[in-house]
């Protein structure tokens, strides 16, 4: 990894930290937990960026892997801080939500309806491609983040216990 790529990653981390922190603050978690959630979000997004742009992994498995790593990190942080694990996992995936594909789906759909059936079929292909991309990325994120929840559910419930 060259120095330039390292700085790109750092920049990515910075902005995804702000995104996770800001969106996390809407749900009013304790401040310390909010900072950790922001850091997790930064880790998740920059890890996905690393996987996609430097190792050439496809966006769906990259999303799944980074959500999984963020989920397991959240597991350990929640255990340490005696907090519910949701406080960390929910804001951590927010920067990875596939907003642009979802938007493109809608735009292409409207364009298809506008152009009519005869001349608009190339828009329909875009609808399907973008729609399924958004759906798969979203499912990969949620599955990755829920994996520790479901695998160690009994342990996760006991995190807020103080004894």
């Amino acid at each position: 990894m060259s120095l330039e790529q390292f700085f790109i990653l750092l920049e990515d981390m910075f902005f995804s930290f702000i995104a996770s922190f800001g969106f996390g603050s809407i749900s009013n978690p304790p401040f310390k937990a909010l900072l950790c959630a922001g850091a997790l979000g930064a880790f998740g997004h920059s890890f996905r960026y690393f996987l996609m742009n430097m190792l050439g992994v496809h966006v769906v498995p990259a999303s799944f892997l980074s959500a999984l790593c963020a989920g397991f990190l959240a597991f350990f942080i929640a255990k340490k801080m005696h907090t519910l694990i949701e406080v960390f996992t929910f804001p951590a995936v927010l920067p990875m939500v596939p907003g642009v594909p979802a938007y493109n789906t809608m735009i292409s759909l409207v364009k298809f309806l506008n152009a009519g059936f005869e001349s608009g079929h190339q828009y329909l292909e875009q609808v399907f491609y973008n729609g399924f991309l958004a759906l798969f990325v979203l499912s990969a994120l949620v599955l990755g983040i829920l994996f520790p929840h479901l695998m160690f559910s009994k342990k996760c419930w006991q995190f807020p216990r103080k004894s």
Partner: protein
Amino acid sequence: MQKNSAAALSPQNQELNSLCSRLLELLLDITVTLVCSGSHSGKTIRILKRFAKPFGFEVYVMLQTKSVSLTLLYSADHRIQQTAIRHIPGLHLNFYFQNMLSRLSWEVCDNGMDLDRLDALYHEIVQTPRYSFYVIWLTTSLANMAFCRLFGGDAYAMLFVFLGTAIACYVRARLLRREIHHLFVLIITAFVSSLTAGCTELFQLGNTASIALATSVLFMIPGVPLINSLIEILEGHILNGLEKIMSACTIIVCIALGLLLTLVILGLENL
């Protein structure tokens, strides 16, 4: 019925009866707080069971979208049983409440607690103020701006997304105070936010107008209910999960409608 009223005559049972009704009231309050602050059904029920156990009661919960019904049953010999039902107001996410109530429930379950003290501690938790509106306003706008950057927007797109989010948050807070239907508020908010971001397209600033438009409405996506609904379906609370998915989809459709309005005004061909 007859058996209950006869049993209620004895002083010991009367005492138990009043304990039961007080505990029931408190547990209903706790349930409403938990559900409103965005806890999924499984977690809510687990927390309630932990609260009721050290007092010698079993709790049975029927949790629906708009109402909750609790039944308390005296575990030892089932001689006391009370049921009550309460309405649930709208969702207002608050992880602090969830976290503290979960912690409190473990404390009660492990060490036991006096009902008066539990009541006091509960009210102490509930009265903790949220972050101020202005802080949330600033962080949300900054977060959406950072989002725009992550999707590849340039400086103009970032600036207008920041402005759009800030204006939209303000408009939403003002409209919600007037008790307008929340879905209608969402359409207007999405319209305002995307129109502001659309200024990049209108005045030809930068060349990532479509990214600005796409990210300007993302701060309204109901992420927590969406994830919660999946957890509920996986844990077997299928109806509650489907309801949450449906309501989240309604919200997303409303956001899309607001965005569509902007696109019609700006002209679709340019995008």
